[in-house]
């Protein structure tokens, strides 16, 4: 398992799991609710997303992520509550919102018998750009998304990854302030995912775009998001950057250290358990997990090397998104 890497540049990591970042919110959801008959798809959702932030909306299938996104765009009406995108209410001023927000649906469709260029130019024209400028922008975006060579090809012949990249170009052609990506990495091969995510994060960095990304792939979200929100059964059960979520989970303040050696001897285990601050020790084949109330990593290393037991692995365990996810699910039942 690799160590957690998060960017906390624009967001103050105050350790709170409240979901209120600093700076002016671009997306403001207050008590947003959507009911389908008796079923509550989104339950009183409160969420603020600041300008320039990459926010990951995480949750299992059917958690209400897409419904939330549709309400933000005015593509479906909220039962209750309000959304404000760039200061506009999508239920009333859908047009202003749509002018500023680019939306990439999870399974984006194009006119298959038209070329990539045609599709992009059409979107640009619908956004009120004149013909010549549309073509220019379309070409530059195809260049940027690495599709310049396929500009004249019909979209019907595109692979899944190419479509997704074309989708991104399509979203960007209107020069949006906010982009909303619904499961952008679904069904793309790992290399394609890496490229797409790199593209998204570079866009956010270079052009100050606010990005809302929904996904159920924890690792991908972890790679690029400033903050994540965990969304389960229509409710946002936690929001914050990954270190603070991890800290909040680890309320008892215990640290887990995993040690691996080539040969475990009873004496070694005994010596480790004798250390001051060690609470429990459990062994699973090569790997020994030491739970302690302070950081004993250097001491453990010292002892293992002192015993000449060939230290093969040593890691202070931190909560990754996987663990966060699981822990929250356990708690939510």
């Amino acid at each position, binding site marked *: 398992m690799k160590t957690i890497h998060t960017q906390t540049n624009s967001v103050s990591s105050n350790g709170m799991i409240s979901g209120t970042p600093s700076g002016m919110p671009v997306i403001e959801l207050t008590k947003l609710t959507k009911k389908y008959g008796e079923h509550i798809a989104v339950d009183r959702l409160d969420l603020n997303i600041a300008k320039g932030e990459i926010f990951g909306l995480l949750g299992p299938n059917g958690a209400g992520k*897409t419904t939330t996104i*549709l309400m933000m*765009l005015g*593509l*479906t*009406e909220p039962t209750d509550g309000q959304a404000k995108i760039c200061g506009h209410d999508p*239920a*009333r*001023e*859908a*047009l*202003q919102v*749509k*002018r500023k*927000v*680019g*939306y990439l*649906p*999870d*399974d*984006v*469709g*194009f*006119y*298959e*018998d038209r070329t990539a260029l045609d599709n992009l130019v*059409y*979107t640009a*024209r*619908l*956004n*009120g750009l004149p013909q010549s400028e549309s073509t220019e922008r379309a070409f530059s975006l195809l260049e940027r998304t690495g599709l310049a060579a396929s500009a004249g090809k019909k979209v019907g012949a595109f692979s899944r990854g190419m479509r997704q990249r074309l*989708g991104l170009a*399509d979203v960007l052609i*209107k020069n949006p302030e906010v982009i909303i990506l*619904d499961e952008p990495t679904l069904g793309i091969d790992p290399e394609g995912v890496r490229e797409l995510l790199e593209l998204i994060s570079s866009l956010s960095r270079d052009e100050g775009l606010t990005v809302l990304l929904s996904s159920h792939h924890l690792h991908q979200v972890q790679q690029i998001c400033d903050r994540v929100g965990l969304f389960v059964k229509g409710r946002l059960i936690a929001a914050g950057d990954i270190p603070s979520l991890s800290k909040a989970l680890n309320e008892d303040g215990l640290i887990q250290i995993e040690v691996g050696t080539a040969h475990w001897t009873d004496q070694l285990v005994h010596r480790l358990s004798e250390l001051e601050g060690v609470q429990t020790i459990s062994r699973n084949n090569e790997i020994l997990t030491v739970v302690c109330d302070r950081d004993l990593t250097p001491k453990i290393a010292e002892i293992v090397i002192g015993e000449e037991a060939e230290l093969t692995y040593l890691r202070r365990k931190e909560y990754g998104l996987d663990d966060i996810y699981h822990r929250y699910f356990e708690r939510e039942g």
Partner: protein
Amino acid sequence: MTINWLQIKQKIEVLFNNVSTGPAQAREPGSSSSFWVMVKKEIGDHIRSWRFGILIGIIILACVGSIYSAVTAIRDGTLDKTGNGESFLFLRMFTLTSSSLAVPSFATFLSWLGPLLGIALGFDAVNSERNKGTLGRLLSQPIYRDDFIIAKFISSLFLIFIVVFSLGFLVMGLSLLTIGYPPSPEEFCRIVLFLVIAVIYIGFWLNLSILFSIRFRQAATSALSSIAVWLFFTIFYGMIIGMINSATAVSSTQPDPAAQLRQMNLILTLNRLSPTELFSETITTMLSPGIRTLGPLTMDQLVGAIASPLPLGQSVILVWPQLTGLIAATIICFGISYALFMRQEIRARA
């Protein structure tokens, strides 16, 4: 008092705001340009599609066939037997059929194939976009939702207009060549009106199929529903009316003209619920100036009438109710589609 007034004013404003939720907001300048972009794209899509090409092929064949049939009929001398058609020879090109050839007239062809053209252009207008996932992408662009369906409707109607008028003028041109007898201004006006009515009629079927394409997620379901409605009105509705007619028939030996008239009017009213019937009544009146009434006529009313064709204005007055009915049916269909579509949730692929 002043406070009261203020409160009332506020309440009214709140009410107004609630009313203007959604699509009823004020139009912004510049939204019309994206509307025409959509219309243009739709027309382009239709023209490039195979479906449109095939339909046009069929209709052109039918049109040539009907002219041939009409010309044959004129050569055979069918015309002389009907007598009063002499003064409107040119119009006969649209209605005449040869007794020796089993090819119907142009008007009949249009009333048969027109609905098919309308259905073919509309049955997958909305659901194919939905299934391809382009609807969500399109509606997340700054366009009004109603612009989307209006663009779908206008572009198809425009094509229908082009097709119907070019065919109509083609028939006129070919008739000129074959019979060498030019139309009078009145005949020309009658033909143009006939073509306009045909466009409205086909527009009705277009709207109906767009309605089904919004209602049904599968293109096949919507196509089948539209065709079912079309078959019902062209074939079964007549049969049902016939059954009702024979069931309610008043004995002709019974000397009660009032009862007979009542029964006749009932059947006529039932008949006129069908758009097909409305269309055929309208076009026969337009193309045959000899028709003086579309309902029952008593001997009393005929006394003193001079047997002459009606002038154009009178013919139009005669079919005005039918025409209104046709337009109303079209608008009702469009209204339902509009209401359905505005409230619908747009998922990427649902």
